[in-house]
C-alpha cells in the first residue's frame, strides 16, 4: 500500500480534481451564469474523483488473480515484460 506508484497516482489525481473543483470556481467571472458554472465544476470534480477513487480502491488489495488461457500466458510472458 505504500507503493510509490500508487502514491504518485493518488496525489496527481487528487490534485487535479481538487484544482478543478476547488480552485477554478474562484476564477469564474461574475455574471448571471456564475452559479450554474460553479455548481457544474464542483459536481463534476466530486463525481469523477469519486468514480476514479472507487476503481483504484477496489484493485488495491485483490483477493484473487485473473485466470488466463495458456496462449495468453505465453504471449504475456514474452511480450509484456
Amino acid at each position: 500500500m505504500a507503493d510509490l506508484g500508487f502514491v504518485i497516482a493518488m496525489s496527481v489525481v487528487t490534485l487535479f480534481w481538487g484544482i478543478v473543483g476547488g480552485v477554478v470556481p474562484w476564477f469564474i467571472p461574475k455574471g448571471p451564469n456564475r452559479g450554474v458554472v460553479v455548481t457544474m465544476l464542483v459536481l463534476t470534480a466530486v463525481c469523477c474523483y469519486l468514480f476514479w477513487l472507487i476503481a483504484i480502491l477496489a484493485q488495491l488489495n485483490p483477493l484473487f488473480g485473473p485466470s488466463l488461457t495458456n496462449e495468453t500466458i505465453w504471449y504475456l510472458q514474452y511480450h509484456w515484460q
Partner: protein
Amino acid sequence: MSSLLRGEEMCLAQLFLQSGSSYDCISELGELGLVEFRDLNPSVNAFQRKHVNEIKKCEEMERILGYLLREVKRADISLPEGDVNPVAPLPKHVMAIMEQLQRLEVELGEVTRNKEKLQRNLLELTEYTHMLRISRNFVQKSSEREPLQVQYEEFPFLEKDTMMDYSSMQRLGARLGFISGLVKRTKIGAFERMLWRVCKGYTILSYAEVDEYLDDPDTREPTKSVVFLISYWGDQIGQKVKKICDCYHCHVYPYPSSNEERNDVVEGLRTRIQDLHTVLHRTEDYLKQVLMKASESVYTWVLQVKKMKAIYYILNLCSFDVTNKCLIAEVWCPVDDIPTLRRALEEGSRKSGATVPSFVNRIPTNDTPPTLIKTNKLTSGFQNIVDAYGVGSYREVNPAPFTIITFPFLFAVMFGDLGHGVIMALFALWMVLYENNRKLKNTRNEIWNTFFEGRYIILLMGLFSIYTGLIYNDCFSKSLNIFGSGWNVSAMFRAEVWKNGDISGNRLLTLDPNVTGVFNGPYPLGIDPIWNLATNRLTFLNSYKMKMSVILGVIHMSFGVILSTYNHLHFRKKHNLYLVFLPELLFLLCLFGYLVFMIIYKWLVFTAKDSRHAPSILIHFINMFLMQGDAVQPLYPGQTGLQVFLVVIAVLSVPVLLLGKPVYLYWLRHGNHRPGLYRGYERVRRNSEEELYLMRAQDMEEGSSHSDLSTSGERQTEEFDFADELLHQAIHTIEYCLGCVSNTASYLRLWALSLAHAQLSEVLWAMVMRVALRMDTRLGVLFLVPVFGLFAVLTVTILLVMEGLSAFLHALRLHWVEFQNKFYSGTGVKFCPFAFSLLPSSFEQHGLL
C-alpha cells in the same frame, strides 16, 4: 443562479389600461412575453365575450390565408425565408388587410375556375379526336376503302357487312342511328352485356381500345378508355341505348355521318385544341403571377393576424372597472420585471397617443403563484426533463442545476465505453455547432426535434461516457494499456509456481497475488487491462460494479436528503430540520452509510494474504440487523458494539420521524392558545355585537368562562388537523424507511446496465469483426470491408441508439424516483407568459408554412 436554484419570486399585479390604449399596451406586452394573464370573466361563455366579433373577423382572415397558402404551396412557389416580425396591426388598418385578402380570394377563385373549365374542355376535345380517329375504322364503305387500314381482327364481319350502307338503310325504311363515345375499359364488358340484354340484338356494338392513357375530364386521373360505336334501328331502341350510356357514365360525342363531315370535324377540333392550349398557358402564367405577388406578403399577414387574434383573446380576459372607462387586467409577473412592465405600459400609452397613462399596481394575494425558472439554451434541456416529472412548487429547490452533471454522469456509469462515447459526443458536437442552421432547427420530424432539443444533454452524456469508458478500460470491448499492467506473469515462473510444462499441460491458470512480484500495485487509471484477457473477468467486475453502485447510490440519496434542508430553511420551518431532516439522515447513514463504510474498510484492510477468510459484507450486514454479532469473525475490534449502537439509533429515529412533527405542531397551536386567544378572538368577532353582549351576560350569570365555549369549537378543528397531519407523516415515514432499502437496491441497475452494455459490445466484436480479422490475408482484406460496415451499423443501432435510450431511461428513473422523492414535491404550475413568439400557428401544424 437563485433563479435556477429556486425559481423567480412572483407577484400578482393589476393593470389599469385606458380603453383607447389597451390594444397597444397588450401588443407591447405580447412582444416582451413578461406576464401571464388571469381570466377575470371565467363564467362568461366564449360567444358572449366582448370582442367576439373581432375574433370572428380574424378567423375569417385566417380562413382566406389558409386558402392562399394552399394555392401557393400547390403552385410550388417558395415563401420568402426572412426573419420578419411585424407588429400587430392597429384596428384601423385591419379593414385594409381584410379587403386585400378578400379581393385576392375572389380573383384567385375566378382564375382557378376558368382554368378548370378550360382544362375540362381540352380533355373532352382530345377524347373526341381519339374517338373520331378510332371509329373511322369501324364503318367501312367499300367505295371509300382506303389502302392502309388497321383491321380489327375481332370484328371481321363488319367489313363485309354492306348493310351498313346508308342507301340500303333508307331502302329498309328504318332509321339507322349511331351513338358513339368513350367508356372506361373496366366497364366495357358489363356495358356490352347490358346492351345485348336490353336491346335484344337490335343494336350492334363495335369498340376498340385507346392506346394511350387519357385524363378523364371529371376526375383528372389517367384512365384507359374504350371507343365504342353503337348502331341501332328505331327511335325507341335509341332512347334505351341513350339511357344505358348515361348509366355507364359514357362520354358521348356526335358521330359524323360522312367522311367529309368527319374530316371537317377533325380539322376544326385540331384548331380548337391548339387555341385552347395557348389560352391555358396564358391562364396558368397569370395565375402564377397572382400567386407570386400574394406570396410576398402572405407571411407577414399570417403573423399579423395571429398577433391580432391573440390580443383580442387577452382583451376578452379583462374586465371593466366601475366607471366603465378603464380596463382592468390581473397578471402574474416576476417581481424583478415590474419596472420593465411599467416601461412597456408607458410605451403602449405613448404609441396610442393617450393622455392618461396606464399603470400597474401590485396586489397581495394568498393564491400560490405559478413557477417561473429562467433558463438558457444549456439548462433548458435539463429543466425540461425535471419538469416532465412535475413542475416545482413555488420557490422550492429545483433539482435541475444538479441534474446537469449527475444525470449525464449516471448515464455514463451505465453506458461506459470510450469508443461509443466518442461517437456520441461527436454527433452532439455537430448538432451544437450547427444549431443556428435554419434547416436543422425547423424540420417537422418529431424524433429529430427531440434529439435536437437535447443536444447539450447528449454532448455531456458523451463526454462523461468517454471518462467512464477510460476508467472501465473499455473501448469497443477492448482495453487500453497506457501505463502498463500491474500484474506480472513472469513472476509466477520466477517463483517456480508454474513450470514451463504447465502451459502446455493446463488450459487455464490463475495468477496468485500472494506470490511476490505478481501484483505490482493497482493500475493508476481505472481497471487493469489484464482483466480483459482473463476468463474470470466478470467475477472481479461484478463485485467491483455492485459495490460501486451501492456507494454511488447512498451518496446520491444522502445528497437528496441534504437538499431538503434548503426547503426547510427557506420556508422557515426550522422545526422540520430537527424533526424530519435529522431522523431521515440518521436512518440513512446509520444503516446504509455504515454499509458503505464496511465496503471501503474491506477494500483497504483485507489483502490477498487474508483472502481465505475474507468476510462477506452482506452476511455482516444481515447479522447486524439480527443482532448476531458472534456468528462470524468481526471485521475490526468493537464491531458488535458499534453495530448495535447504530441499529438502535436508526430504530429510534423512526418514531421521531413519525410523531415528532405532528406532536410539535399540535403543541404549537394548542399550548399557545392561552396568551393570544387567537382562534377564540376570531370566533368572537364573527358573532354580532348583540349576541356577544348576551353571551357575556349569560356567562357572568352562569359563572362559566367564555373561553371554554371557544376552545371546544377550536379543539374540534384542531383534532382534525392533528389526525390529518399524523396520517400524512405516517405515510411519509413508511415511504421513506421502506424506500431507503428498495432505492439502495434500485441503484444496482447501474451495475446491471453497464454489464449488459459490455457484454453486447463483446459479443458484437467476437461474432462480427473477429470473424473477418481471422481470415487469410488476401481474402480477409476484401471481406473486412463489408464486415466492418455491418459492425458499424450494428454498433450504431444496437449499442448507441438502443442501449443509449435504455441507459437514458434508467438514469432518468433514478433521478425522478430515487433522488427526487427525498426532497422534491413537484406540484406546481408552470408559468405560461403571454408572448407572441410562443403562440402556436395552426398553419405550421398543417405543414403549410
